C-alpha cells in the first residue's frame, strides 16, 4: 500500500499566482491608464472630496472647537440614543436575518418566491413612507397603537418607535448578504457534522456560522452603518424631541437648520467616521481570513 499512497502526494495546487493570465486591455478604446484615472477621478469627486471637505470644515478651527461642539447635553443625549438604537437593532436583525436566510435557502414553504421578494421591500420603500406606515399602525389612533396605549406603552414619539423604524429599514442587510453564502455552502458540510455526531445546535455554531461569517460580517457592518445614519423613518416616528427622541442624525439636521454649523459638522464627522472605520475593519478582517 505504501507505494500507491506515496504516489498520491500531490503538491497543493490552486493558489499559484503564476498561472493567472493577465487580462489584455490593449483593445479597449482608451487604454488601461485612461480607464483607471477616469474611474478614480470619478470616485474622488463623488466620494472622497465631500468626505475630505467635511473633515476640513469640522477641524478648521482646531480640534478644540471640534470636541467642544460635541460637549452639549443635547449632543450627548442624541448619540446615546443612537447608540442604544443601533445596538438593539443590530442584535435583533442579526438573529432574525440569519433565521430568514436559513428559511429562504433551506426550507420549502408555499409562497416562498413571493416572500423572497417581500424581504427586499424595506429597500424599495422610501424611509419617510415607512415612517408613516408605522405612525398609521402604532400611532395613538392606530390599530395596534390604541392597544399599546391602553396598556400604557407609547410606541410612536418614543424609543420603541425609533427602534421599530430602524429595524424595518435595516431588515434586509444581513439576510441579503447571508443568503448567497449559505446557498453556495450547500448542506453537505452540515450533514457531515450530523453523521459525526454533532447535534443541530453544535452544527449551527461550529459549521453554519463559521461558513457564513464573511457574509454575516458584511451584513452586520451595513446594518450598523444604516442604523447610525437612518434619518427619514426615524424623523417621522420620533417626533424629533430634543433630549428625548432626537437621534444623532436628527441632531445634525437640527443644528444645521439652527445655523449652528459647528455642531452639525462635528457630529457628522463622528457619525461618518464610525461607519468608515467599521467598513475598513470588516474589509481588513475579510481579507485576512480569506487568505486561508
Amino acid at each position, binding site marked *: *500500500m505504501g507505494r*500507491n*499512497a*506515496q*504516489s*498520491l*502526494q*500531490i*503538491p*497543493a*495546487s*490552486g*493558489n499559484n499566482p503564476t498561472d493567472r493570465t493577465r487580462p489584455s486591455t490593449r483593445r479597449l478604446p482608451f487604454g488601461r491608464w485612461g480607464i483607471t484615472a477616469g474611474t478614480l477621478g470619478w470616485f474622488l469627486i463623488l466620494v472622497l472630496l465631500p468626505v475630505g471637505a467635511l473633515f476640513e470644515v469640522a477641524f478648521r478651527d482646531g480640534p478644540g472647537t471640534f470636541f467642544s461642539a460635541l460637549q452639549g447635553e443635547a449632543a450627548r443625549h442624541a448619540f446615546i440614543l443612537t447608540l442604544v438604537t443601533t445596538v438593539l437593532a443590530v442584535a435583533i436583525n442579526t438573529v432574525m436575518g440569519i433565521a430568514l436566510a436559513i428559511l429562504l435557502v433551506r426550507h420549502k414553504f408555499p409562497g416562498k418566491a413571493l416572500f423572497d421578494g417581500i424581504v427586499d421591500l424595506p429597500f424599495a420603500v422610501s424611509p419617510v413612507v415607512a415612517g408613516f406606515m408605522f405612525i398609521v399602525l402604532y400611532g395613538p389612533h392606530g390599530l395596534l397603537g390604541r392597544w399599546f396605549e391602553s396598556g400604557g406603552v407609547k410606541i410612536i414619539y418614543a424609543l420603541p418607535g425609533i427602534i421599530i423604524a430602524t429595524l424595518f429599514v435595516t431588515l434586509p442587510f444581513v439576510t441579503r448578504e447571508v443568503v448567497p453564502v449559505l446557498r453556495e455552502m*450547500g448542506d*453537505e*458540510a452540515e*450533514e*457531515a*457534522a*450530523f*453523521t*459525526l*455526531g*454533532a*447535534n443541530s445546535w*453544535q452544527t449551527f455554531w*461550529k*459549521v453554519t456560522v*463559521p*461558513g457564513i*461569517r464573511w457574509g454575516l460580517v458584511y451584513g452586520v457592518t451595513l446594518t450598523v452603518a444604516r442604523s447610525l445614519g437612518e434619518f427619514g423613518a426615524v424623523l417621522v416616528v420620533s417626533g424629533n424631541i430634543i433630549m428625548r427622541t432626537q437621534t444623532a442624525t436628527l441632531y445634525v439636521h437640527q443644528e444645521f437648520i439652527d445655523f449652528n454649523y459647528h455642531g452639525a459638522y462635528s457630529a457628522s464627522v463622528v457619525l461618518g467616521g464610525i461607519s468608515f472605520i467599521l467598513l475598513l475593519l470588516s474589509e481588513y478582517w475579510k481579507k485576512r*481570513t480569506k487568505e*486561508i
Partner: protein
Amino acid sequence: MAIAVSNLTKRFGDCLAVDDVSFLVEQGELVTLLGPSGSGKSTILRIIAGLEEPDAGTIYLYGNDVSSSPPQKRNVGFVFQNYALFKHLTVQKNIAFGLEVQKRPKHKIQERVKELLHLVKLEGYEDRYPSQLSGGQRQRVALARSLAPEPKVLLLDEPFGALDAKVRQNLATWLRDLHRQIHITSVFVTHDQDEAIEISDEIVVLNRGKVEQIGKPEEIYDRPRTRFVASFVGTANVIEATVRDGKVVIGNDGMQLPIRVGFPDHGEVVVLVRPEDIAISRDVSHGDLTGTITGVRYRGDVYEATLETFGLSIHMIQPKEGFLEQNWQLGETVAILFDRFKSFQAEEGHEAIRERLRSLGYIE
C-alpha cells in the same frame, strides 16, 4: 449481519427513486452500489446514514432497527463526493471534529488524529486548510474525518467522482488496500464499473431504483443475469435478433449469427457479445457471418476494430501482437466468430431496456 436493507422504497414527487430494494452486507465487507445516475444508489446510501427518510422499508445496523434514529445516533461514517470539509478548520481540526463534539478527552483526540493522519498519509499537513490541498488530499482528509469517531459502518458516496482519472485510479487502489488493512464494513457508491469491479467484495447493480443483480465482481461480469447488467458492466455489442427455426438471424435477409440459443423457435432475442470475445478469420466458409473491417484504432496495449455486417456495427478488441501478425487491412471481408456471448429473450419492458441502452450509447 452488519447492514441489512429491507424492502426500501423512496419517492421524490412522481419519481420512484428507490423501488423495493433489499440487500445485506457482511461484517468487514466492502459492497458497492453500482448504477447509472438516477438509479437510486446515492439515495439508498443517504437513507442508511439517516440523511434521508425512506417512505417504506427498514435499515438494520448490527441487528438493530435504526430506521427512526437520527444520523447522530447511527454511528456511521459518511464520505461525500464533494468532500464537504469544514473550510474554516485546519486538517487536524477537521479530523478531530467528531471526537470534539462527542466530548472525548483531549489527549485521546490528539492521539487518534495522529493515528489517522498516518493512516491517510497526510503527516505534515495538520495545519493546512482544505483550500491548500489537492482534490485527492481533500478526499483523504474527509475519509480520516469520517473514520475518527470509529464508526461501525463507512458509507462512501462517489468519493472519487470529482477527481481526474489518474488520481481516481490511484485512490481506488489505495482505498481497497486501506479496507484490507482496517476491515471496516463499507458501502461504496459509484457509476464507474471498473472502479466497482476493482475494489468490491460484492456488487449490487441498480437500475431505475431496482436491484438488477447482486454478486461478486466475477459473477457480475462473467454471468450477468439481466440485459441491463450485461450492457452496463463492461462494454458489450448489443445485437437485436430474431429466432427463426432454431437459428438466430439478423436483418431482413435472415443472416445467421454464429450462435445457438436455448430459446423457443420463434421470437425476438437480444444478444450481447463483449469486444474481447470476438474473433475474426480470413478463412471464410459457407454459412459464416461475414463482415467488413471499417475501422482500426490503436489503444496502447490493444487494437480496437469496427466490423460492419448487415447494417450492424460490431466492436472487437484484440491484443497488439496477434493483431499486427495478421496484418488486417481496412475493407477486408472476414468471418466473424463469437467466442462467448450472452442472450436474453425479448420480453415485456423491452422498450424500456432499449431506451436505457440508447441512453448509454450502446444502440442508436
